[in-house]
């Protein structure tokens, strides 16, 4: 059964074997004549129509739900500073959160933490999400998982295992050599038919061995690689910690070519995915900067915080994304979030990708610009224009 969300401009649907698909009004009318609408008469009333009137955020497509704040791994770069004593919502509280997420019109609920597999009711929660029409996915370290815990993961539509490296790289990052264990989890899940991906945070430590990491993941049966930008927050306590690990400017400039190379290398083995914070890194690539319409049509989204994305913390509070602070609003307020605006100013004003990128990662910007709200200072285009402005004789 495919769930469809009507919108004034057409509809969103989650199509098995494909993903999230937005169709225009003409296609919607052809496919679903029972609920046909026209631009002049976009009936029936849809949440998005009400949103447009009340300046609310668009209904989320995906909501990240922290099902626990507990984790015993103690990774130095944890963005949440999760500990074994972290807060953990009750099963009933999570059911209420799932109710609110379903009511909001979201399609995907991404379970995170903390370490979600510490919950003994994880499989049941996944089934409860499905019963509400949601597609549940989950991220785990994959460490120390018994056969029983791995079985709980099979109720999810997708599982991502954090794998920032193998061997020495993994040990250096996490303080223990758990890569073999994480790869065992991938192997066990994939052989059981679960769709498994790996999350790799790109840092100065992980980038040099990226293909070694992805080779191991592909061999173990992973079918996708989610590359993540390193972001300040949680246990990355100081700006110095962050600056020491973030990619250097040349690596950022080379990033589009890295994506091309990875696409060639892993064709038919791994789908290569980037996170929303990496979209600014495409802006100095001549080919990609000229293909804004293609990026948009393929759903390569920049900052969607507070728009198509929302997050619920382990304390049941809403935030625009997992990296931004909680708001006082409880999860029940999901359908009433204020719209997040993005004004394309400064370097963004003349960027062809501005509409998609939406100014880059707010979590990074807030940390690196002391909350002044400027564009993402690590965007290579922002860097170049700032450099040109500072050159002697440059127009001010």
């Amino acid at each position, binding site marked *: 059964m*495919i769930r469809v969300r009507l919108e004034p401009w057409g509809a969103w649907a989650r199509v098995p074997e494909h*993903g999230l698909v937005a169709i225009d009004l003409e296609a919607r009318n052809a496919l679903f004549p029972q609920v046909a609408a026209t631009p002049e008469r976009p009936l029936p009333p849809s949440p998005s129509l009400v949103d447009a009137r009340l300046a609310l955020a668009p209904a989320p497509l995906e909501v990240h739900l922290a099902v626990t704040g507990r984790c015993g791994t103690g990774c130095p770069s944890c963005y949440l500073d999760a500990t074994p004593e972290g807060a953990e919502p009750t099963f009933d509280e999570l059911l209420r959160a799932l109710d609110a997420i379903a009511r909001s019109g979201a399609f995907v609920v991404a379970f995170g933490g903390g370490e979600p597999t510490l919950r003994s009711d994880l499989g049941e929660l996944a089934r409860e999400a499905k019963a509400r029409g949601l597609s549940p996915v989950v991220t785990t370290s994959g460490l120390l998982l018994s056969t029983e815990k791995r079985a709980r993961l099979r109720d999810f539509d997708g599982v991502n295992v954090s794998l920032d490296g193998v061997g020495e790289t993994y040990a250096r990052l996490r303080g223990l050599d758990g890569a073999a264990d994480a790869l065992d989890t991938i192997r066990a899940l994939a052989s059981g038919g679960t769709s498994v991906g790996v999350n790799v945070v790109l840092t100065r430590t992980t980038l040099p061995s990226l293909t070694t990491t992805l080779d191991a993941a592909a061999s173990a049966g992973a079918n996708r690689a989610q590359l993540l930008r390193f972001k300040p927050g949680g246990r990355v306590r100081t700006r110095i910690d962050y600056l020491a690990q973030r990619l250097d400017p040349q690596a950022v400039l080379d990033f589009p070519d890295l994506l091309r190379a990875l696409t060639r290398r892993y064709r038919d083995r791994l789908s290569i995915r980037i996170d929303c914070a990496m979209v600014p890194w495409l802006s100095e690539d001549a080919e990609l900067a000229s293909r804004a319409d293609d990026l948009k049509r393929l759903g390569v989204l920049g900052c969607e915080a507070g728009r198509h994305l929302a997050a619920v913390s382990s304390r049941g509070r809403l935030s625009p994304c*997992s990296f931004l602070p909680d708001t006082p609003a409880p999860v029940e307020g999901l359908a009433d979030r204020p719209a997040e605006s993005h004004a394309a100013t400064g370097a963004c004003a003349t960027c062809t990708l501005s509409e998609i990128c939406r100014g880059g990662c707010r979590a990074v910007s807030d940390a690196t610009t002391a909350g002044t709200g400027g564009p993402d200072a690590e965007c290579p285009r922002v860097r170049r224009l700032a450099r040109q402005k500072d050159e002697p004789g440059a127009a001010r």
Partner: protein
Amino acid sequence: MSGREGSPPIETGLENKPDRDPGAGVLVYRAGTSANCSSVGSSVDLLFVTAAVGGAIFAAAMAALASSKVTIPDDDAPAPDDGEPKAPERDP
């Protein structure tokens, strides 16, 4: 919007205009499973092969949508009461 699966399943049938490209109605195609707890993930490999296969992928998605049973949740949001609906301010 209600999360209730309130409407009975609707059998779909693609009745597009014959001269329309089958995938033309796809505004956005976000491939794959987003199993990432911290950020929105987007598949980028399609970007580098889309010129060759993009149209076929969009058409396949439309065909899958057309041949599947769908459910359209009931909408219990209050209808606007201040005149004609405005044009949508955003596209996806």
